[in-house]
């Protein structure tokens, strides 16, 4: 099997172990990117409200999540 077909086979797998691992990995990647981007936005002077709007979440949510890790 070529690499491409292998990937396609895995992606369309109905095996929950594969599917859920994909979701979990995606979530971790998402969290990393979010933290990175929030930190970057803060460093560039964005307000929590602006960041929240861009992320389509409430200001409280984003502030609560990142106030400890991001200045």
């Amino acid at each position: 099997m070529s690499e491409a077909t292998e990937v396609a086979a895995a992606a369309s797998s109905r095996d929950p172990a594969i599917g859920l691992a994909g979701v979990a990995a995606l979530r971790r990647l998402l969290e990393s990117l979010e933290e990175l981007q929030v930190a970057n936005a803060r460093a560039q002077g964005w307000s929590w409200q602006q960041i929240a709007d861009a992320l389509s979440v409430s200001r409280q949510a984003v502030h609560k999540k990142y106030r400890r890790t991001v200045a």
Partner: protein
Amino acid sequence: MFERFTEKARTVVVLAQEECRQRGDQAIGTEHLLLALFRVPENLAAMVLDGFSVRRADVEADLAARWTTPPPDGAADADALAALGIDLDEVRRRVEEAFGPGALDRARTPKRRFLGGHIPFAKEAKKALELALREALALKHNYIGTEHILLGMLHGEGAAHDVLVERGVLLDVARVIVDELVRGRRAG
């Protein structure tokens, strides 16, 4: 909720917090309570566990086996993402292009959040402590001791429950042993 806790039971809660912090976990779980039970000298819960031949080292080994989730930036994630058509290396390359070397992996390192501060109880641990109270009431004890915490843990969800049940510590049997131990203590 800790008013009726005995000195030893309070110590267990304090030590559970310590166990949690040492492991860098974000909330006190039943596993931390269980590990803490072994650290309080001469407590009834430890005696019950000893009766089932469950030692701290066993529990630690079982917990370690359960916590073998791959590190967030491990190869497992790269494979899982590749299955969805996402090339983690490529994502990393682009992020580093914009933010500098190691930018993505820095963000992916779990933060040790509650260092020094207040650590919350996980849902299961809170539940176990509530059930400890219920166990004490059912046994007509007017205090909550380490033995009740153990019984509370054996009720339902949580890592401690799973580890203990796999080692053959059953709620009904443990309850009988607790009852006998307490009666014996009163008699003697």
